[in-house]
């Protein structure tokens, strides 16, 4: 029987000929990513173990991004624990280099790999043909000590993309629309696979954006084929342009959706659920207090270029805070070189370092009672960005920037 991309990656990691949805496999992990959100908890558990041994320290990549730079003695203590442990045990540690998933994609991920990350958006690696999935710190600890874990091979929902994005719609509008269509648990326990003739019209940044948000539909991971565009990215980032897996013609998909990207319009996810989707026009008079352009979902150079092209020569609306956070040090450097940071600064934006920022409601830019944020972040749950009685709308870099200028939710021209 044919296999999907997800099944092939699990079969490879389990060292078996075939893997099929619904069965549990013991797998060897290729990378184990953890960030400062929970690594201190993993270390606490590790230190209580009888036999303290890391299976292979080269598999571990630790990245500080959630509270960078530290905002309190408590987070400073957590980070110190992480920093000291990494040093003592020879674990690769990134600090101030950017958001964990962006760094993993820029520097580490290869096609066909299986990655556990102690962060829900670890589903972001599918554009390189790799299966990343989020776990908690106990699962992480187990994999760190044994090199292995168990996975339930998922069913796959296949999205056949045709046409190209137009009418001001972006990849972010596409994935938000898909989440609205299938619901916040529409892909629970499943893989989402994106293929089709429309793929050639999506950049790597677009593809990362799509895979990254799959967990907001409940998915275990998002997956794509490794084509020339993905291979060019691997080469540009100093890695071998290896082949990925392709689903077999007779692979079994739970459902196949045909999506004409030309039909996608700019949308927002309204409070307090990511699947609460509306065209931007329907909420166009909602006043905002803050706008955020950044995050692992939408903080890459392409997103910053889009925002800069809209705000160039204009100003942020009086009384509105506009936070801009490039997704990584490399993205920040590129934006500086292209004059993009100057454009945001001249417009009155607050440009901050690369970190998770208000997307996870800590460190920077949290909002107060009754306030409204429009964000390129990943989630709009109640209280996610600050006070429990505040409101988050999710939109594209274009919508967020246009809204920052207008002071209310606005569709970019």
């Amino acid at each position, binding site marked *: 029987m044919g296999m999907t991309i997800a099944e092939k990656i699990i079969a490879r990691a389990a060292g078996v000929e075939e893997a099929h949805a619904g069965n549990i496999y013991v797998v060897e992990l290729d990378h184990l990513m953890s960030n400062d959100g929970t690594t201190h908890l993993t270390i606490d558990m590790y230190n209580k*173990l009888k036999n303290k041994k890391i299976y292979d320290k080269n598999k571990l990549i630790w990245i500080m991004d959630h*509270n960078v730079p530290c905002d309190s003695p408590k987070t400073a203590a957590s980070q110190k624990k992480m920093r000291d442990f990494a040093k003592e045990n020879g674990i690769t540690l990134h600090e101030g280099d950017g958001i964990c998933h962006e760094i993993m994609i820029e520097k580490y991920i290869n096609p066909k790999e299986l990655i556990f990350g102690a962060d829900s958006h*670890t589903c972001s690696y599918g554009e390189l043909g790799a299966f990343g999935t989020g776990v*908690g710190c*106990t699962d992480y600890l187990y994999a760190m000590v*044994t090199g292995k874990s168990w996975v339930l091979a998922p069913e796959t929902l296949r999205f056949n993309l045709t046409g190209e994005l137009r009418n001001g719609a972006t990849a972010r509008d596409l994935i938000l629309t898909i989440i609205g269509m299938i619901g916040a648990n529409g892909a629970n326990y499943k893989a989402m696979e994106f293929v089709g003739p429309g793929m050639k019209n999506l950049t790597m940044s677009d593809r990362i954006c799509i895979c990254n948000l799959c967990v907001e539909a*409940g998915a*275990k991971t998002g997956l794509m084929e490794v084509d020339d565009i993905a291979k060019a990215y691997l080469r540009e980032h100093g890695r071998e342009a290896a082949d990925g897996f392709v689903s077999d013609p007779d692979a079994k998909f739970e459902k196949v959706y045909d999506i004409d990207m030309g039909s996608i319009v700019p949308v927002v996810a309204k409070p307090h659920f990511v699947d609460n989707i509306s065209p931007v026009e329907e909420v166009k008079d909602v006043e905002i207090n803050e706008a955020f352009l950044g995050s692992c979902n939408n903080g890459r150079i392409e997103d910053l270029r889009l925002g800069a092209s809209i705000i160039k020569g204009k100003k942020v609306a009086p009384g509105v805070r506009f936070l801009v956070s490039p997704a990584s040090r490399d993205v920040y450097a590129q934006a500086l070189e292209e004059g993009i940071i100057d454009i945001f600064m001249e417009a009155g934006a607050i440009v901050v370092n690369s970190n998770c920022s208000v997307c996870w409601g800590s460190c920077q830019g949290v909002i107060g009672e009754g306030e409204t944020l429009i964000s390129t972040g990943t*989630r709009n749950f109640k209280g*996610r960005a600050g006070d429990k009685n505040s409101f988050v709308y999710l939109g594209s870099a274009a919508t967020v920037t246009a809204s920052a200028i207008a002071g209310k939710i606005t569709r970019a021209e």
Partner: protein
Amino acid sequence: MATFTGKVFVLGDDIDTDIIIPTEYLALKTIDDMRQYGFYPLRPELPSLIKKGDIIVAGNNFGCGSSREQAPEVIKALGVSCVIAKSFARIFYRNSINNGLLLIENSDIQDVVKEGDELTVIPGQEIQHKGASYKIGSLPDNLMDILNDGGLVNAMKKRNGLI
């Protein structure tokens, strides 16, 4: 796992991990410190009302959102004996088993149960409510062993001293 009875607290669909324990309180030192903020954005009074052995009944997609393991830990620390929901988000599901929190999938009880009602759970068999019973599935034996041992780390220590 023995039969148990508890008072019910009813929640809706898509109870996310930011509701179970908001980001703001994750920096607190221990789960006991965090416990009082459980469900704070939605039902801030819950931690003071939930008694040991009580049961949460919810709708679809319970535990969606982040991978923060503090979510099942806080629910367990509140004394909740189990969460019954129509469905659970996958990371939360793994984290709960790994921390010894019992989760039960059932889609019928939500229509009949009201907050404050008592439920009796016979693990792996049925839920009893006001004289009616509702069938529930059982976890595979190996996952049940992890639950009974109080989580994955304890189970591994006990089983083979691997960690």
